[in-house]
């Protein structure tokens, strides 16, 4: 890599007043023709391009982004990473992603600050505890790390949590995935962009796809705000906007786009060292390296592309956090925001070919897409390169909504984040 990052590069550039740093990624003019076009310059799209170039030797690739790189859900999530999914197919897919996370900073030569501080799902009812046992055992047999914790063990790890019976929904236990954690969300997009650009991928920002060029049931290219760009293979990775792209191809997807909100507190000294999630009271919290509590709110019920939701959702989430952490009542919210999540009926993604030859979709990640970023890009790149799904994503095709072979993480009451 021409511009390799290291402590040495920092010293060298520091001595040169930081005037010699190279662009992290290049911003070329779009060419007329590519082998593959990726629509969507978020984490998943950039990862797809990176792995197409790195693992499949397909380097004549363009990533088209209508705004700025990583400006969608990559920039708006609560950065939680875990693989403790219930169903085999989901566990294997997310575990593939988690393994990639574990070497990602080194692979990209970009520190994405993946921090394996663990992810804890607390249970408040006997049924929660049955579900926790079921999931933990399934995880262990799928090679995913899992521990079931008693309230006292929870308290030892998270001293500020209230395990007393004074709360409305007392905590009865938890599952814990030690290898789970958080990462620096923006860095993931930038790291993949830099890696892809280095391998020859063209990253084109401010380029909105306005139409898909389809002839005889085959994709030929895309219309964009910067002119038509041709390619025989187009992968759409546009999260909340997937249905809009699908419509351009005359397709319908089993998706609904909803607002999902989150907020952060002011920055404080370390006070919570892992990720704590509760499905029953509906709130989850971690603390960033900068010291802010990062808190995910519930999903707004209605469709929304507005990147904003209703304030009562945030109010309820604040109450949920106080239910678990009564001392956080006096902590203050610094900033709130919203994203658009594309929710599928079974809370599992769609990584699939379509009836248009050469047109692929990767969407439906709902509230949990960030954690899958490298894994998603990796298997989607395989799907595009081979025009055939990777074994890990073959179950995540669109067919399942006709055959009934859902992978029902919703129904299984798994935490949907």
């Amino acid at each position: 890599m021409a511009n390799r990052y290291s402590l040495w590069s920092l010293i060298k550039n520091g001595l040169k007043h930081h005037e010699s740093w190279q662009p992290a990624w290049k911003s070329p003019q779009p060419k007329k023709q590519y082998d593959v076009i990726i629509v969507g310059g978020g984490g998943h799209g950039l990862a797809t391009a990176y792995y197409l170039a790195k693992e499949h030797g397909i380097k004549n690739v363009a990533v088209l982004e209508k705004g700025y790189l990583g400006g969608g859900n990559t920039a708006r999530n609560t950065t939680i990473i875990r693989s403790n999914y219930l169903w085999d197919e989901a566990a294997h897919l997310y575990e593939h992603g988690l393994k990639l996370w574990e070497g990602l900073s080194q692979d990209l030569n970009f520190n994405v600050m993946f921090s394996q501080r663990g992810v804890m799902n607390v249970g408040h009812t006997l049924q929660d505890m049955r579900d926790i046992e079921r999931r933990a055992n399934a995880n262990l047999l799928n090679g995913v790390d899992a521990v079931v914790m008693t309230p006292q063990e929870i308290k030892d790890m998270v001293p500020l949590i209230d395990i007393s019976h004074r709360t409305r929904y007392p905590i009865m236990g938890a599952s814990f995935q030690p290898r789970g954690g958080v990462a620096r969300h923006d860095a993931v997009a930038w790291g993949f962009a830099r890696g892809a650009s280095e391998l020859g991928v063209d990253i084109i920002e401010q380029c909105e796809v306005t139409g898909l060029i389809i002839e005889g049931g085959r994709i030929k290219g895309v219309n964009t705000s910067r002119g038509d760009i041709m390619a025989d293979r187009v992968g759409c990775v546009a999260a909340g906007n997937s249905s809009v792209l699908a419509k351009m191809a005359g397709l319908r997807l089993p998706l609904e786009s909803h607002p999902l909100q989150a907020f952060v507190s002011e920055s404080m000294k370390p006070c919570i060292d892992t990720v704590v999630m509760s499905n029953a009271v509906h709130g989850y919290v971690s603390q960033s390296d900068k010291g802010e509590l990062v808190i995910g709110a519930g999903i707004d019920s209605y469709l929304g592309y507005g990147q904003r939701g209703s304030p009562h959702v945030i109010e309820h989430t604040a109450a949920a956090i106080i239910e678990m952490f009564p001392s956080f009542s006096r902590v203050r919210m610094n900033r709130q925001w919203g994203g658009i999540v594309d929710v599928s009926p079974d809370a599992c993604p769609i990584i699939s070919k379509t009836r248009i030859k050469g047109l692929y979709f990767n969407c439906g990640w709902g509230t949990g897409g960030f954690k899958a970023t490298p894994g998603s890009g990796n298997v989607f790149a395989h799907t595009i390169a081979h025009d055939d799904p990777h074994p890990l994503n073959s179950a995540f095709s669109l067919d399942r909504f006709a055959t009934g072979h859902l992978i029902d993480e919703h129904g299984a009451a798994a935490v949907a984040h």
Partner: protein
Amino acid sequence: MSGYRIHRPGERINRQKPLSFVFDNVQYKAFSGDTLASALLANGVRLIGRSFKYGRPRGIVGFGAEEPNALIQLETGAHTVPDLKATQVELYQGLLAGSTTGYPSLDFDLKGLLGKFGRFMPPGFYYKTFMEPVKAWPFYEKFIRKAAGYGRAPTEADPESYDHLHHHIDVLVVGGGAAGLWAATLAGRAGLKTLLVDEQAEMGGWLLTERRSRIDGLSGMDWVNQRLAELASLPNVSVLPRTTAFALHDLNLVQAVELLQDHLPLTERNAALPRQRLHKIRAHQVILASGAIERPLVFGYNDVPGVMTAAAGHSYLNRYGVAVGREVLVQTQNDAAYEAALDLALSGVKVTLADARQGGAAAWRQQALKNAGAELLLGHGIAKVLGDKSVSGAQLVKLDARNNQVIGSGPRLSVDTVLSSGGLTSTVHLFCHNGGRPLWNQQQLSFVCPDEGRENIACVGAITGRWELSDALDQTHATVAALLLGHGRGSTGKAPAVASEEVAAPRAIFRLPDGKPEGHGAKAFVDYQNDVAAADIHTAVRENYRSIEHVKRYTALGFGTDQGKLSNINGFAIAAEALGKPIAEVGTTTYRPSYTPVTFGALAGPHVGETFDARRYTAMHASHDARKAEYEVVGQWLRPWYFPKPGEDLHAAVNRECLATRNSVGVMDASTLGKIDVKGPDAREFLNRIYSNAWSKLDPGKCRYGLMLDENGMVMDDGVTACLADDHFHMTTTTGGAARVYSWLERWHQTEWPELKVRFTTTTDHWATVAVVGPNSRKVLQKLCTDIDFDKDAFKFMDGRSGTVAGLPARVFRISFSGELAYEINVDANYGRYMWEEVMKAGAEFDITPYGTETMHVLRAEKGFIIVGQDTDGSMSPNDLAMSWAVGMKKPFSFLGKRSLLRSHTAGAGRKQLVGLLPLDPKVVLAEGAQILSNTDDTVPAAMQGHVTSSYHSAFLGRSIAMAVLKDGSKREGDTVFVWAHGKSVPAQVVSSVFVDKEGVRQHA
């Protein structure tokens, strides 16, 4: 000694009320009306914190919400609050505060040492290192985390409370400065229901600081008081000080938080009142009069304690009687800062004013300043500030008149304080929270709100870039008058008269040059809180982080608790220069709530603790309490889990309850089951469509178990429904599913089959239900009821009767969730406890035994009855549950979910089915949630065959039993499988899931 008290006419402190407070363990004196910041400055305290990245010494910069540095920890113990801005903390007697940064001490900070290597820590340096060796990141991260963060989170539960208040009003005015007061006055005079909020303790805005203006011939504060008096006299107007409008949502929903008691000593707070109140305001018309905030200029070492904004220096002087220094350099590019310089000079402070403009301010201002004894340096800028923990001087340079360049060296001044003004920044936040975009105004050098505002949102005063009071009031009057006219209210009176003054244009300069290429000279900070220097923005752009959002995210510009109130415009301007684009094209980052931080407790309001969620108790709850029940949380309900006798644990109690019920009689509170009254000529047809089984032939007086599927064909609820009359049914649902099923029925009826004549009424809370269960249950019922014939052939299993039980009208259903002879007595919920106690009395001779949900679970598992949500998970079809007997595939109407059962996968092989399991060792109770393997030697990832859904010790059978879902389970009876949990596997035999009384003799007895 830097700051000191000085008497000022009209100061807002009360010298008759001296106070004392403690900061970092030192006691100081102050006055009522001080903020913590003004009091610290008056006591000469400058070093308040250490910076985030480099550990540089930092002091107070601003005087309000814009403060980036002075983040303090207020109070200790349960009352502690982290990260408050000292500039916003009202002082009270005995206040206890401390700094939040500096290790091991504020004065000697280790990070400060590291910060000396700041040149090797460009923006995003952490993305570029700490990667090797692979396993070392947690080690690095530990130190990074320790070094980050300001205050400490409280560790005790909050002793104070919060509430919410809703408003539905005509006009909300945000901001109680001159413009806001006038807007509220006009709206109030027009008779509109008006609310005026302002974040400060006192209304007046900039008039609290600025003392020279006269409005309608009055001094500023006299005019403010006149306004407040008038507003107080209008019954349709409310004025809320200490109330920050922090978010504006769609359709003019504004959230504002009022600090009701934060300004009071802890000992004087009224525990019966909330600490803070969240106002949720729906206003037909919002008028934003949130003013503007002065931003500093960016120059070398502009972060040394003692460098402040001119507005702050001015405010501390006039509002709090605090001179921030003895020898003050004021650096400006505009006229307004001359006012601060003048007041300081008139107060005896030695003042030098450096103006980046060659021509300086309007002539009259220059003259006034000179007359006051101040020195004026035109065409000068600060190259760098001297001093370490406090300002000791400044090096100036001569500036080119047009280009942002140095043309010569300037004097080196010995001063103890530097005030700078880079012009005003409109407070556009609320305008932008739900999609509004501000416009760049090149004359006023600020992003401003458009004069025309937005639909139902008007913008008045400095928020539109009108810095001069006369302009601001004229525009306010014109805007509000037009609004009122639009609402048919006509306007009242004329605009307040303020003499307009000659003003020289400001210079478009944000970063004062020092004659060196960016990055070579002294660090010039843009964002103090995040240690973002001008050079960092250039570096980011060089690395292709060119979108302003990328600049922000890469450098952390504007990410702090001040949300960039001082830094954003400077940052955008410097980015624009680096990008070679006009500022307007660079644009702004997104403004998001909250404007200033808001306490979680205020957001949650009263919805915490016991009121976090409603708690539902059955009518018999007091009886259960009296019998020392342990409870289980089921949805919002509290249900008896088991009834331990002294010395019994769960298992002992459940064994006893089970045996008593199977051998004699038990009693359970079944009131929480959902109950829905379904009535109408088409009720039967409706049930046919909504349930998978058939209802056409259910006669009045008969009950039937029903399965409800979602349209995906999976079981979503179940329960027994009784036919009361041909057109009238009593439906029951699961406890947790009651509300969902009720909506489900309504929605299908209204959206898909409105032609069906049927109505639904939820009656869960109307009926109290006592289940009397066991071989002696008939005898108990017979003692209580004489008008129902309980003969086994007259009142059969799955029959329902109406009669009089214990003197009460009752519906009695002979249904059984245990496989025993059993009756459920339903009475008016008001008599629930009475009925329970009557049953207990009647059953005493049979040793009637109350039991809870755990025994219910065991009894039903012994019979293989499912619990939806425990034995199902949204992926189980009726066929998977071996319940195809409950699916009427021949019904004429294609009931909900039917078609999905025919899909290739749903109808195919290899699905999991419900089975029973008997552990080979009858003493071993399998773990619920354990996974099932076909072989003991399976390796990870293992081929899981299913899992255990329910598992108990059956006292009746004297052994353990379990229910499970198993791949192809219906064909595997007799197989031995291995039940795996946490590394241990236990062999078990696959059997039918009916363990007790397969023939059903007992329930038909």
